[in-house]
């Protein structure tokens, strides 16, 4: 056991790190149950209760929370440094073993550690990009939906134009022009190309909310536009936005992986699930472990995200929330 401790000076710290990650998963699930048990009958609490009763969703949440913790604690929990090449001559292309859980690649780097560090990059890029695109999309859609009329018309035409360009081509075009792609640039790029769908959805919902009595009531009380937007419209739009954001997280992970695979996303030697697959793709038949494990990582992550997202949609569905 001691023999595979390399990255971390102390094996017990690494084990402790793993324990913390498992605990993070458990903590997330516990938090949902705790939130669901509160006394009030508010719509959020009932949504949590619904979520808590959905077993697959709770399993997905456990996995995702653990993955997030692994991503954060990668330097502590990874057995090797991701770019360490201890023995290029005889240590490369080793199949999975106790020393190297996922085997080694052509440069004798430990695939398991690379996958862990790659996850760090992939998850961080996806989370930040989705955060950016959600904020942009919500703001744009809310403004368009709330004001309606000509402003809405103009804003939507701009949106239609933007939507007509396939996202991946847009990203590739920008990358081709730019000299290098740093992680922040990639986040910005993915975020800025991803808000269109959200804004359409938010606009539609804001438009319909605007016609409802609850908005008329607020206006009759003398509420200003921004008060109505902030106090009534946004909270009611929030649940749709959360679901959409969760589901788009999966899409962005796949998109980033695709870009990195093509060589125009994260460039080696920085590991990202996509470029690890690229490295292993030429030796698929002989050294299958190099491409399989990062691929599995993507599949499990996206599956968990989609499961959780679907469950969130059911839990936050206005119909279950309103108790009707």
């Amino acid at each position, binding site marked *: 056991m001691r023999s595979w401790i390399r990255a971390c000076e102390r094996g017990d710290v690494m084990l402790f790190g793993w324990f913390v990650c498992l605990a993070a998963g458990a903590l997330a699930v516990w938090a949902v149950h705790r939130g669901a048990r509160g006394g*009030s*009958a*508010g*719509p959020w609490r009932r949504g949590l209760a619904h979520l808590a009763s959905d077993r697959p969703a709770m399993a997905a949440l456990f996995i995702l929370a653990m993955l997030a913790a692994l991503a954060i604690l990668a330097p502590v929990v990874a057995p090797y440094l991701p770019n360490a090449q201890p023995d290029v001559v005889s240590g490369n292309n080793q199949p999975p073993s106790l020393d190297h859980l996922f085997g080694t690649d052509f440069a004798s780097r430990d695939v398991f550690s690379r996958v862990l560090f790659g996850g760090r990059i992939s998850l961080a890029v996806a989370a930040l990009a989705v955060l950016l695109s959600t904020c942009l999309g919500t703001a744009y859609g809310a403004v368009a939906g709330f004001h309606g009329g000509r402003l809405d018309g103009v804003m939507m035409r701009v949106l239609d134009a933007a939507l007509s360009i396939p996202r991946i081509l847009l990203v590739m075009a920008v990358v081709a022009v730019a000299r290098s792609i740093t992680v922040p640039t990639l986040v910005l790029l993915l975020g800025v190309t991803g808000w269109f769908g959200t804004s359409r959805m938010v606009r539609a919902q804001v438009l319909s909310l605007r016609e*409802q*009595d*609850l908005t*008329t*009531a*607020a*206006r*009759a*009380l*003398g*509420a*200003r536009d921004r*008060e109505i937007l902030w*106090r*009534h419209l946004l*909270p*009611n739009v929030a649940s749709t936005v959360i679901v959409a954001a969760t589901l788009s997280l999966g899409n962005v992970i796949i998109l980033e992986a695709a870009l990195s695979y093509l060589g125009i996303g994260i460039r080696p030697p920085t590991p990202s699930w996509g470029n690890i697959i690229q490295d292993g793709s030429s030796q698929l038949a002989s050294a299958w472990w190099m491409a399989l494990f990062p691929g599995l990582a993507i599949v499990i992550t996206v599956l968990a995200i989609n499961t959780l997202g679907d469950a969130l949609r059911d839990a936050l569905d*206005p119909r279950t*929330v*309103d*108790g*009707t």
Partner: protein
Amino acid sequence: MSAARPPGGPLLSVRALTKRFAPRRALFGAGGGGVLAVDDVSLEIAAGETLGLVGESGSGKTTLGRCILRLMEPDSGSVTFDGTEVLALAAEPLRALRREMQLVFQDPFASLDPRMTVGAIVREGITIHRLAEGAAAEARVARLLDEVGLSKEAATRYPHEFSGGQRQRIGIARALAVEPRFLICDEPVSSLDVSVQAQVINLLRDLQRARGLAYLFIAHDLSVVEHIAHRVAVMHRGRIVETGSSTELFAAPKAAYTKELLAAAPRPIA
């Protein structure tokens, strides 16, 4: 702020109000012509008085109510509240005037934000107009809930936990929070059960007596209107076809449409 009301003059005066809905711009020819929802309507309501407005769906009653409160912009005419011309006000003075005129909705569920607690809903008007803050605001909310017959514990609960009649009371409490002098009740009991209707109608009458409120009571149920209104106006296709005191109008209707409405109303056997 407002011109002094001529003593003895009405609290609310509507003159020649007209609202036309723009024709739908149809893509393949034949778009409908604009609908004249409110056609040259004039009426008056004195302080502390209830004017009933009856008519069928599509007659323009709701549109008239919204135009009076300027939640919709009428095309022409005037609305004078306590001497002030409502349609000529700028945004800020209009907002201040909104305190005086409030609205109670037909569907108590649709008009209450399901994500806010009852306390927050009732407090909204107080917050908007800065009438009170913090504990003083909470105290006001508690008093209002009590006044409409709800317990003060209701403030921490959510609208869906209440029955239709109770939600309607919440709506009334919200309207009263800003201390209006005039309330437009737009079919406030139509979606409620019979015994609950009676509770809400009694409540509205009690509140009128206690606070000296004037009501424009819009309904399609003639017996309810006869019970609560001092005077009644009958609306048909955007026009007022008859106005009169409640007892006279129902006992001896003059307009043909009024007679038709009365004839169609189902009556329990005495």
